[in-house]
């Protein structure tokens, strides 16, 4: 796989950012977009636009077909058994809110427990927190260990006879830990507990097979997968989508509406109320094709090489402290530098064109546990090279110089 060639497919790298070549190390936040995705949005609006699923005119039928083609592509990409197990949302956040809301309504009562982990992004905690108030449920946290991972044993320890659902990240956006999802799901199912996986970081970087993972729900963010913003996917087993109540009410999700009663539409319409992000869904198909063309196994291998190289280089840099050391780790490195606050690091790196993130990365629970108010984070995408990592290291040395550190 030729990274230089792949990088050329991303127009953002054609231009200088503040007179520097862009070294983009913030893909865990959001990935850059290949030209085919950008062009698809333009072409759709210019030549093919219509709302989907409603009118019978030519454009409407063609747009509906395109929209449904993305659903089929996603189904194949994640190996779901049925295309109606793919629900489009505005993002992974909405996907998790959908489950928390509908599962919460139907299955959670006072004193019931939702088991999450200390690694969770706010989007896999706050939606469940709402149910503390409305349903008086409890939220339990599986703890992170010194390596920055959550083990199967820890999950087992926190399961009680009140545990009604387990919600875990596939890949931590802070420590990079990849959780043993298949084992967690298998154990949870042996106790009759469904599992929701926050796949925001998993989907862009790992091979996905829903039938193999066997999880009940899997939330995906489109914009982290080289796709447009405003689009996410909720994968859910058909039995859940048939069983749970609708999430939002509106056009498109109904079968029949009378003054005295309403019946709801079939899957997948039941969960797609109102006009969806049509252009983004259609362009997201190009993101899937882009990933398939390169091959997710190749992406995994490339990002692992980058990770190993970065960990080795930064470990030699004696001021850098890498957060966590999980056995199974994705392309995310959070770090601190003794004597320089992460925000200062980010500002100084930015001056060299190196884009990283600093802060709590929407994981305040984890940062509190680590005793760190903030960390700096470099995260990788398919377009990154070892040169990018070298530039990161050089710019870190520049930080040290500015702060008079050795």
């Amino acid at each position, binding site marked *: 796989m030729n990274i230089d060639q792949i990088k050329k497919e991303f127009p953002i790298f054609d231009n200088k950012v503040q007179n520097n070549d862009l070294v983009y190390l913030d893909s865990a936040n959001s990935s850059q977009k290949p030209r085919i995705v950008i062009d698809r949005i333009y072409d759709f609006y210019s030549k093919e636009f219509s709302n989907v699923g409603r009118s019978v005119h030519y454009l409407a039928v063609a747009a509906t077909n395109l929209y449904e083609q993305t659903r089929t592509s996603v189904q194949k990409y994640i190996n779901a058994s049925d295309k109606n197990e793919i629900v489009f949302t505005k993002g992974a956040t909405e996907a998790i809110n959908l489950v928390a809301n509908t599962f919460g309504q139907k299955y959670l009562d006072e004193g019931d427990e939702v088991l999450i982990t200390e690694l969770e992004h706010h989007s896999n905690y706050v939606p469940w927190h709402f149910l503390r108030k409305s349903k008086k449920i409890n939220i339990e946290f599986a703890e992170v260990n010194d390596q920055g991972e959550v083990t199967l044993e820890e999950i087992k320890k926190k399961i009680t006879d009140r545990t009604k659902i387990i919600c875990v990240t596939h890949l931590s956006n802070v420590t990079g830990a990849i959780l043993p999802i298949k084992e967690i799901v298998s154990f949870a199912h042996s106790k009759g507990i469904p599992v929701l996986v926050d796949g925001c970081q998993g989907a862009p970087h790992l091979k996905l097979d829903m039938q193999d993972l066997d999880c009940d729900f899997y939330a995906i963010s489109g914009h982290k997968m080289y796709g447009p913003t405003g689009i996410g996917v909720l994968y859910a087993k058909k039995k859940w989508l048939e069983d749970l109540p609708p999430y939002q009410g509106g056009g498109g999700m109904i079968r029949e509406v009378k003054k005295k009663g309403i019946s709801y539409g079939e899957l997948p319409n039941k969960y797609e109320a109102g006009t969806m992000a049509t252009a983004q869904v259609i362009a997201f198909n190009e993101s899937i094709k882009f990933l398939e063309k390169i091959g997710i196994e190749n992406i995994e291998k490339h990002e692992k090489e980058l990770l190993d190289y970065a960990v080795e280089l930064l470990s030699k840099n004696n001021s850098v402290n890498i957060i966590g050391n999980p056995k199974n780790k994705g392309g995310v490195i959070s770090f601190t530098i003794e004597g320089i*606050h992460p*925000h*200062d690091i980010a500002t100084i790196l930015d*001056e060299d064109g190196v884009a990283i993130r600093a802060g709590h990365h929407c994981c305040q629970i984890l940062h509190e546990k680590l005793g760190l*108010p903030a960390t700096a984070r470099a995260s990788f995408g398919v377009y990154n090279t070892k040169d990018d990592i070298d530039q990161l290291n050089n710019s870190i040395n520049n930080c040290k110089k500015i702060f008079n550190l050795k």
Partner: protein
Amino acid sequence: MNLKELYQEIILEHGKNPRNLRKTDNFTRDAKGNNPLCGDNVHIYLKLNDNNKVEDISFEGNGCAITMASASIMTDLVRGKEENEVKEIVTDFLDMIKEKDELSTQLLNEDEKTKLMCLSGVKQYPMRVKCATLSWHTLTSAMNNSQDIASTED
């Protein structure tokens, strides 16, 4: 953009060794402030005497070099000032960070103004303005004895 203007020696020095980073005994007013986007936080403690003069001011918290230096310099400068004088200095500083080229208050001498102007480098870094202003907004809350947590997101 110029990093040297942002990270002047005086900022680095105050950031590394912040003055008044402690908790005033028998404080009379206090307030907490945070920057929700980045998690920086400060807690300002004020002790006003019977004449409404700042007898002591201190802070606890953590944040970047700019946040810490700004709180450090601020707490040094307002000690001994009367309540209305403190308010004038706060307003003058915030106006300078927002739009004015210079400080106009007569309550600070040239040396003190020079110190404060070292923070003006953030003007070129819009995302960092909040770091420089956090402790000042929090001081205003403390002066007003507000129980609300001061936020840079107003």
